[in-house]
């Protein structure tokens, strides 16, 4: 038997300079994905007194395996791209609070307070809120019951558990197709099930998946429920156009049907749209003076790493202008 390999995630290991709870920062950046890290780089270059508060580094990028649409990298492992982002951010000796989720952002007398789950609190004149998104569930019977027993949301984490198995992938976008690619690498038989007719994934990814012999394409089908005894054994699907039901015997179900913004901490402070995204203008302003947002948590369409990185930079520059105009800097 070969050694299974190691995963060294240094984000939680490297000694970090901690933010000071007694300091009123010029800026607090909340989040650790592309938008937040890009904002941090821009803020650092403006020599703003700021802190980064994040649960992790990479956000949802961590859950994909490879990226081939980030400018400058024709194909890069997600882990390597995150590492490059992280190295860039950490090169500035920024205070970083790592590993604790933010539960609420409040504003009182023109000062923002960022409250964390461990009851710590940081204060700032401005906040860049860039907390990203999390996976949308299907909300069908069996999904919650079989979570971790065949139901999964992260192919990078769990695809290796399905070597030579049969797996249903719910969704039709890039995430679903990348999941199919991850499953192809472990020789799984893949059933791609999309609720609408056709597929939304980029042509290039679709082409790669379509070359695989053991993939079945079931668009215009809805997954009704996930069944099994101790773990997933089958899913029941229904063809929307005819109403015909069909059972697919399978060992796993990967759910890639979209994302939900992590906007809960600011829901009482700022306007959210019908998708619970933070509404921002073209420079990341939220309508609350001093509060900016960037990345997947915002109303900006097309959730892409490159767009988040750009919007993070814009929000930092915009917040910098605010600090200057209000004579805080």
């Amino acid at each position, binding site marked *: 038997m070969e050694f299974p390999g*190691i995963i060294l995630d240094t984000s939680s290991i490297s000694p970090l300079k901690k933010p000071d709870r007694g300091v009123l920062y010029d800026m607090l950046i909340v989040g650790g994905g592309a938008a937040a890290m890009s904002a941090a780089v821009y803020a650092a270059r403006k020599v703003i007194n700021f802190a980064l508060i994040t649960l992790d580094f990479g956000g949802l990028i961590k859950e994909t395996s490879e990226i081939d649409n980030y400018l400058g990298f024709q194909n890069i492992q997600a882990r390597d791209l995150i590492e490059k982002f992280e190295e860039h951010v950490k090169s500035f000796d920024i205070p970083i609070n790592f590993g604790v989720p933010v539960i609420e952002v409040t504003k009182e007398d023109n000062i923002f307070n960022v409250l964390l789950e461990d009851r710590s609190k940081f204060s700032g004149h401005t906040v860049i809120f860039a907390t990203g998104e999390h996976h949308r569930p299907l909300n069908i019977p069996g999904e919650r019951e079989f979570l971790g027993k065949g139901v999964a949301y992260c192919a990078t984490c769990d695809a290796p558990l399905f070597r030579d198995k049969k797996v249903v992938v719910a969704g039709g976008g890039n995430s679903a197709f990348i999941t199919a690619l991850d499953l192809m690498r472990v020789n799984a038989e893949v059933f791609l099930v999309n609720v609408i007719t056709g597929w939304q994934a980029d042509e290039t990814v679709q082409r790669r998946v379509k070359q695989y012999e053991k993939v079945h394409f079931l668009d215009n089908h809805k997954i009704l429920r996930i069944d099994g005894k101790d773990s997933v054994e089958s899913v029941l699907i229904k063809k929307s156009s005819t109403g015909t039901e069909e059972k697919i015997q399978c060992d796993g179900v990967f759910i890639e049907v979209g994302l939900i913004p992590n906007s809960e901490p600011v829901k009482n402070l700022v306007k959210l749209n019908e998708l619970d995204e933070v509404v921002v203008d073209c420079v990341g302003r939220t309508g609350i003076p001093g509060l900016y947002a960037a990345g997947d948590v915002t109303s900006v369409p097309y959730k892409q790493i490159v767009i988040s990185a750009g919007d993070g930079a814009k929000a930092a520059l915009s917040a910098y202008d605010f600090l200057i105009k209000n004579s805080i800097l």
Partner: protein
Amino acid sequence: MAIIPEKDRKKLTDIFKSLSNDVRVIFFTQEFECEHCKMTRNLLEEVAALSEKISLETYDFVKEAELAKKYGIDRIPATALLGDRDYGIRFYGVPAGYEFTSLIEDIMDISKRDAGLPEEILNELSKIDKPVHIQVLISPT
């Protein structure tokens, strides 16, 4: 061939420069090593070689049964991480995959003699006056 890739070896060497106190890695295997015992031993030998602050002690689970009992170890491969006291940290099986990061995190925490918990939480924890059995089941997802 080395188990830890060169890139990670360099990172670990840098990270281990911040080790402030000694860490004892106590590993239990047996004379006729199982496949996983051998893998774990090789991995731990590579980790220990990256810092003078990390010492590896390898024991035979059968011959050193008393010692194994002292550390509450009843199966192998078993790895116990100790500082100037036993914090109760044990790894059973090969600390591969994501467990490797946990192993390194634990080495760092033990060296600091501090798990980095905020004072408020430590105050709350200090109020616990009877044994509490906690089992945390996790998944990388």
